[in-house]
């Protein structure tokens, strides 16, 4: 209880349009961080949305819905910070335009992902052709449960280099009742986790074998 109780500094008239926080660099850094996150999230959402359709899973579709809300919030924050940064001379107008345009694109991709997931959420009848088209496409989707002897459990995704080893990428994990997504390199998989992975056709078999190897 020290700083808070200290008397306020004597009031000086601050210039009206000079916010002290976030600091100049921090604001631009935050904009860049938001853009990167929007890009990654929007691409993940597309994979998840197709998975939701493929497995006719409302739970995955709802995850897409939640992520879409995050992306919307990120876009609003990014737009505000970008405009503030331009106003305060921290960001060039040309750079700002590019940032806003790319962020908008990412948000539109996220919206489209939700449009796909919406088919599942609204119980639109799924013609078997939709499922088949996802199956036939360049990138396949597969679901499995990790066995105790799986070399990828108990280590972070970064350590196990799952993606490099198998060519497949984990896009969602179900531990308990809910599908979760957005695992980073620190995420540690556990035996019994259900996982959904995407990747090329020829990687699927090897991935499934490593995910649930026969117990010794």
């Amino acid at each position: 209880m020290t700083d808070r109780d200290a008397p306020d500094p004597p009031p000086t008239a601050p210039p009206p349009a000079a916010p002290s926080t976030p600091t100049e660099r921090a604001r631009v850094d935050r904009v860049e961080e938001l853009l990167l996150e929007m890009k990654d999230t929007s691409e993940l959402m597309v994979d998840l949305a197709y998975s939701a359709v493929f497995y006719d899973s409302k739970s995955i579709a709802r995850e897409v819905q939640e992520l879409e809300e995050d992306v919307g919030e990120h876009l609003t924050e990014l737009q505000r910070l970008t405009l503030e940064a331009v106003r305060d001379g921290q960001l060039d107008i040309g750079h700002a335009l590019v940032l806003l345009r790319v962020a908008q694109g990412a948000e539109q991709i996220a919206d489209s992902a939700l449009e796909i997931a919406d088919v599942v959420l609204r119980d639109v009848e799924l013609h078997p052709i939709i499922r088949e088209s996802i199956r036939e496409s360049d990138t396949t989707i597969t679901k499995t449960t990790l066995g105790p002897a799986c070399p990828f459990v108990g280590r972070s995704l970064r350590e196990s280099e799952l993606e490099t080893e198998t060519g497949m990428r984990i896009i969602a994990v179900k531990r308990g009742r809910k599908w979760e997504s957005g695992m980073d390199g620190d995420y540690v998989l556990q035996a019994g986790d259900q996982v959904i992975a995407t990747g090329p056709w020829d990687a699927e078999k090897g991935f499934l074998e490593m995910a649930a190897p026969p117990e010794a």
Partner: protein
Amino acid sequence: MIRWKKRTAPYQEVEYEPLTVLEILTEMKDLSELMTSLAYSALILENDPIGEEVEDLARRMDWLKYQLRLTASLSVRNKEEAEQVAGILQVADASEHIANAASGMLDLMDANITLRPFLGRVLDEADDRITTLKVPAGSPGEGRTLGDMRLESETGLRCLAMRRGARWIYDPGPDARVAADDTLLLRGQQEGASHFKAWLKGEVDEL
């Protein structure tokens, strides 16, 4: 000064071609994903030819969507089928919207070039990195196909495009053969790219 790029696609009479709904839907999904990857690559690498390819693919996408409407309309005989087709069209629309968003991001491509290097720095921190690798002469990769190298499953890298001379080959399939001096545009994690680079140079034996 920013010059906004004008996109004026020539209007063309579209003829009906009897593709199956499955073929169209599959290609639309593949295209939407390829176009997104290429659009980000074009922004990161400041590569105009890739940007132009995205525009061409956008036209292919339009065409596919039109074909799908025709084919789907022809197939509907009753209300139940109409409901099922509505779902198919919604997924197809979404694929097209993804493609539109991807090509929309490139509207600034011919803006003042000094704008762009910063974007590469920002976006290249993403989980998946875009890398270009040149195949040296005498490389173990020479003459091999993407499929028989099992590039994606061995390294996690996806080959988005190959450049041979002045020509780009987009979304090469497993039968695409790598030649000396090809430049490969790859997407994937850094470890995979480093390993593949070492292998191409003959520094490691196993891919």
